[in-house]
């Protein structure tokens, strides 16, 4: 197919929008930790722009999207961007240069790796995180992306995931849970020492950038600059709005309408609508968003009473938001919106919901168990956790030799 300049412009802008989500996530996470760990937390996201940005063009894209090997993983045809050029792919986003599709996908891989770092803040060795992340991208992300988007077995089964409910959010959430279990709780967590967010305005700025970038994430996943992108855009904003507002009310019923709760709700709503955005009528963003806030709120409440220190609630937010969103896709999807999709439960097709469940279980189980194995491997070689003294000092000084808010006088 010839290159369409409108589509190309939209995909390149969308890639840039999704890129901005990773610094946005760095702010979102960075504001929630104590001040001695803010740089370390932000570096966990920023470093992935470097690490995954390189691995993706070297081999990550190929293993995810090159022609299929038994439905399990992509081949080696696109290694080092071989056969990925200015001409469109014949399979993916056929109206934009293949390179544009490739770099758009790179931004998804980067933020997915950055997402699970919310579970390991305040206590993971930076080197161990990098080693684990490289392994995780190679052995968890690329197969899962291939199964769902690269023509692998889940795609063939008919699992719908418009922009990454399975590949990004469930994948990152389940891995975060596994990592939190491997690392154990932060010092002081079990004793319920206060670990106050050191900068909530920073969290809100990060959430704002995430919301902004999410339009590239979801509407960009239409791969065309037309009606479907517009539909996904509206669905995305509607779900984010519904979830933010619902969470605000929940926190108000409990005590006060909190800023931290409202932006948390927004992010969970946006995560939940991700798999559905281009398959549902945009107004269905409302039930998806409200459902996401309820699921996320009670998941977080449950987690906060447990002894599992998924420190920034990656599983409760992205994992549970993603699971709800993937199932909701099987409920609310409509072929009238997207002929490439399917009808969901409310349009009489209960089978789609079962397919969605299969996707949740397969990927959730794979990333949880895979993360336990890879994490154990890194723990046995490099060691995952910093020393007690390093943890007390904070990771900014102990891992990076920097402090965030230094200096007296001017």
């Amino acid at each position: 197919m010839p290159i369409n300049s409108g589509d190309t412009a939209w995909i390149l802008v969308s890639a840039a929008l999704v890129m901005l989500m990773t610094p946005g996530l760095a702010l979102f996470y960075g504001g929630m930790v104590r001040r001695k760990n803010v740089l370390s937390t932000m570096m966990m996201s920023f470093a992935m722009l470097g690490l995954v940005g390189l691995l993706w063009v070297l081999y990550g894209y190929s293993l995810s999207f090159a022609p299929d090997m038994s439905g399990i993983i992509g081949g080696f045809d696109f290694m080092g961007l071989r056969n990925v050029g200015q001409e469109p792919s014949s399979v993916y986003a056929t109206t934009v240069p293949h390179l544009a599709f490739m770099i758009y996908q790179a931004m998804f891989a980067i933020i997915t790796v950055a997402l699970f770092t919310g579970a390991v803040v305040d206590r993971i060795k930076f080197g161990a995180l990098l080693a684990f992340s490289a392994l995780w991208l190679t052995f968890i992300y690329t197969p899962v992306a291939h199964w769902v988007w690269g023509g692998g077995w889940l795609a063939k089964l008919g699992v719908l995931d418009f922009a990454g409910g399975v590949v990004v959010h469930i994948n990152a959430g389940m891995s975060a849970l596994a990592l939190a279990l491997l690392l154990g709780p932060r010092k002081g967590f079990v004793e319920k020492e206060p670990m106050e967010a050191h900068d909530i305005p920073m969290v809100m700025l990060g959430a704002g950038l995430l919301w902004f970038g999410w339009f590239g994430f979801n509407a960009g996943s239409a791969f065309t600059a037309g009606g479907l992108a517009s539909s996904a855009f509206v669905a995305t904003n509607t779900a984010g709005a519904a979830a933010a507002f619902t969470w605000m009310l929940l926190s108000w019923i409990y005590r006060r309408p909190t800023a931290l709760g409202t932006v948390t709700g927004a992010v969970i709503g946006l995560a939940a609508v991700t798999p559905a955005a281009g398959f549902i009528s945009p107004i269905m963003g409302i039930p998806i968003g409200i459902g996401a806030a309820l699921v996320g709120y009670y998941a977080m409440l449950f987690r906060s009473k447990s002894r599992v220190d998924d420190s920034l609630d990656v599983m409760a937010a992205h994992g549970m938001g993603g699971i709800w969103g993937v199932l909701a896709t099987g409920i609310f999807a409509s072929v009238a919106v997207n002929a490439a999709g399917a009808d969901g439960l409310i349009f009489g097709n209960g089978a789609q919901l079962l397919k969605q469940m299969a996707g949740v279980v397969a990927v959730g189980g794979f990333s949880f168990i895979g993360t336990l194995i890879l994490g154990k491997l890194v723990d046995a070689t490099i060691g995952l956790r910093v020393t007690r003294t390093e943890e007390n000092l904070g990771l900014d000084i102990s891992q990076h030799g920097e402090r965030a808010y230094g200096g007296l006088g001017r």
Partner: protein
Amino acid sequence: MKKIEAIIREERLEPVKQALEAGGYFAMTVTEVSGRGEQRGLTLPWRVGEYRVDLLPKLKLEIVVQDKEVDTIVKAIIDNARTGEIGDGKIFIIPVENAIRVRTNEDGDKAINKVTNNKEEAKTK
């Protein structure tokens, strides 16, 4: 010469400051501090649930004055910092050996003159 060190509620700084200024006591050092006492702590909402904050923000005023002025200043602070609720703070009075004004090298009482005198000096210059 005495240092009056007063821990007060953040929101009482303005009235205390104005009362002291009206009495001619302009100079002070104010620091944001955290601490605890009978008020114990409070809980703040987190994303869900809440967490306990057991050190509360207060302000610390430090004022160095001549011995004979201590009672007046303590009264002004108490009158304006008190709400009657737990958590109003405390005042400590500490002997000071000397004070030296960095600009002029003056020491003793001259270094801690009430501001009204300084203003008059400033006018005559």
